[in-house]
């Protein structure tokens, strides 16, 4: 590592990654941006050669996406759903990680494996399982509870439950791993000062976990904003989920059902921008709070 005399070797080693980066990341992003500023212009009856031309329309598609009422409803639905998922999923993940880390727990290994298990279940399969569990004719839950899980007012919670079920284990593992890396003598010192396990968890462990909590939150925000699999899979089982329930579902519909690639491209850039703004906004707020930086 002392000199840079390895010549072209590092570049050679990085060629596969950079080629893949260019082909499957940089070019598609550029292409989306380009598409988002275009539109097909039809002249006359739209028949014959040259009657349909692709023209540049600047930011028209973006302003259309931003003023689309259907899309805004989608954002509101996903906002409610996402807030629910983030709070419950990360709250449970943190709780379970702290419990696993505390000294006095029996069957810890079993619980850890069981709670992580849904991570191995694809989103489609998870939604399918819960979807059938929500059906009155099949569900052991419905035997006990008289709730219509797929009604207009409950379907968001039912969907959030699928995401919480699937995501808690992975986040728990990330937080638990971070907890195990904290030096144990910190706790011993706190214990000698008479702190209870709960005080240690709140005053020592959670502050030490802050970086891991931030990481899991940012990843969860990005994933939640793009929610697509759960509502799409649940749709055949209920009529309370529209084909534009989430913004990404609208992108899919625009691109592949309606065939309006330009709107789809503009909307997907808006989704990306919002998830970046939310992620960075969250990072800023947390930094200001936790570290007192301006």
């Amino acid at each position, binding site marked *: 590592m002392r000199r840079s005399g390895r010549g072209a*070797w590092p570049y050679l080693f990085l060629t596969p990654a950079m080629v893949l980066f260019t082909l499957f990341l940089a070019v598609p992003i550029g292409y989306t941006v380009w598409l988002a500023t275009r539109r097909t212009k039809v002249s006359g009856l739209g028949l014959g050669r040259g009657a349909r031309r692709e023209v540049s329309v600047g930011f028209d598609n973006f302003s259309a996406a931003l003023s689309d009422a259907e899309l805004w409803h989608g954002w509101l639905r996903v906002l409610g759903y996402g807030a629910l998922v983030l709070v419950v999923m990360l709250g449970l993940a943190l709780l379970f990680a702290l419990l696993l880390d505390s000294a006095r727990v029996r069957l810890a290994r079993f619980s850890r494996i069981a709670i992580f298990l849904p991570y191995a279940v694809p989103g489609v399969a998870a939604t399918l399982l819960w979807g059938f569990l929500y059906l009155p004719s099949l569900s052991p839950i419905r035997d006990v509870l008289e709730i219509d899980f797929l009604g207009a007012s409950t379907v968001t919670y039912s969907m959030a439950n699928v995401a919480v079920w699937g995501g*808690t284990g992975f986040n728990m593992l990330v937080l638990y791993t971070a907890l195990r890396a904290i030096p144990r003598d910190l706790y011993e010192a706190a214990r000698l000062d008479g702190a209870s396990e709960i005080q240690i968890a709140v005053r020592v462990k959670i502050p030490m976990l802050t970086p891991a909590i931030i990481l899991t939150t940012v990843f969860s925000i990005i994933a939640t904003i793009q929610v697509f699999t759960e509502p799409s899979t649940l749709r055949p089982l209920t009529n309370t989920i529209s084909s534009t329930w989430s913004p990404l579902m609208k992108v899919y519909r625009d691109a592949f059902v309606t065939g309006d690639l330009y709107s789809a491209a503009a909307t997907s850039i808006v989704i990306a921008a919002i998830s970046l703004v939310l992620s960075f906004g969250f990072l800023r707020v947390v930094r200001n709070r936790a570290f007192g930086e301006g």
Partner: protein
Amino acid sequence: MASAHRLKAARAPWGVAPTGLLLLGAIYCLFPVFWVLIAATKSPAELFSTSTLSFGTGFLDNVTQLFAYRDGVFWLWAANTLLYAGGGALLSTAVSAVSGYTLAKYRFRGRNLIFNLLIGGILVPSVVLAIPQYLLFSKVGLADTYWAVLLPQILHPYSIYLARVYATAAIPDSLLEAGRIDGAGEGRLMYQVAIPLMVPGMVTIFLFQFVAIWNNFLLPFIMLGDDGKFPLTVGLFTLLQSGANQPSLYNLILTGAFLSLIPLIALFLTMQRYWKTDLSSGAVK
């Protein structure tokens, strides 16, 4: 005595409450899997007539029916999934390991730029990529092929990051220097020194990537039209779409869902020690 007593009380504030809470979590997580196991054993008639939590007698019939469904398309989906997840994760691990090692152990112009570019990919939502990827693949005539699902999933920024962290911790610089003094070329150093030392970390990267591809729905859903190339996720989705209004197909859907869980859960349980989210410790215990 008094202080020892206080210490003990402080350690167990609510007795069995922590264990109880964790077990509740475990039951919540296992319950749907357990239920689908039961549901998959029921014949179509039993599904709606017998108690929701008692086993049925139709498991073998369901499996036979599922495998006969549309000339055994379920088998094809399973094989495709294995190909996508296995092949994709293998290639992804190789690219990640080589890139991570290079970024960890070489100093060269543009290193930070390249690393930041690659890592920035983590923040790009897949939605921005899937549609243009589809359009670009159609332009070169590769949409609706195996390549369309395999190739875009090879580059995985987070795996490169993990590989870099692992390489930093697991490969001593002195070993590389010794190799160089002995006259080994950079290529040989990588194959014979670096990669063997990175194997445990690579297993972890492989597993996470395998699961990610196995579970991916959006990309194959967008890329593929021919159901002979579907992975299980898209296959189950179409099965549900066509069967949601026909309760007579429910047993097929449930059996399919159950069977599709087995490989991943098996992999998961047998590879326990490699499921780690922190590779900086450098070695797997």
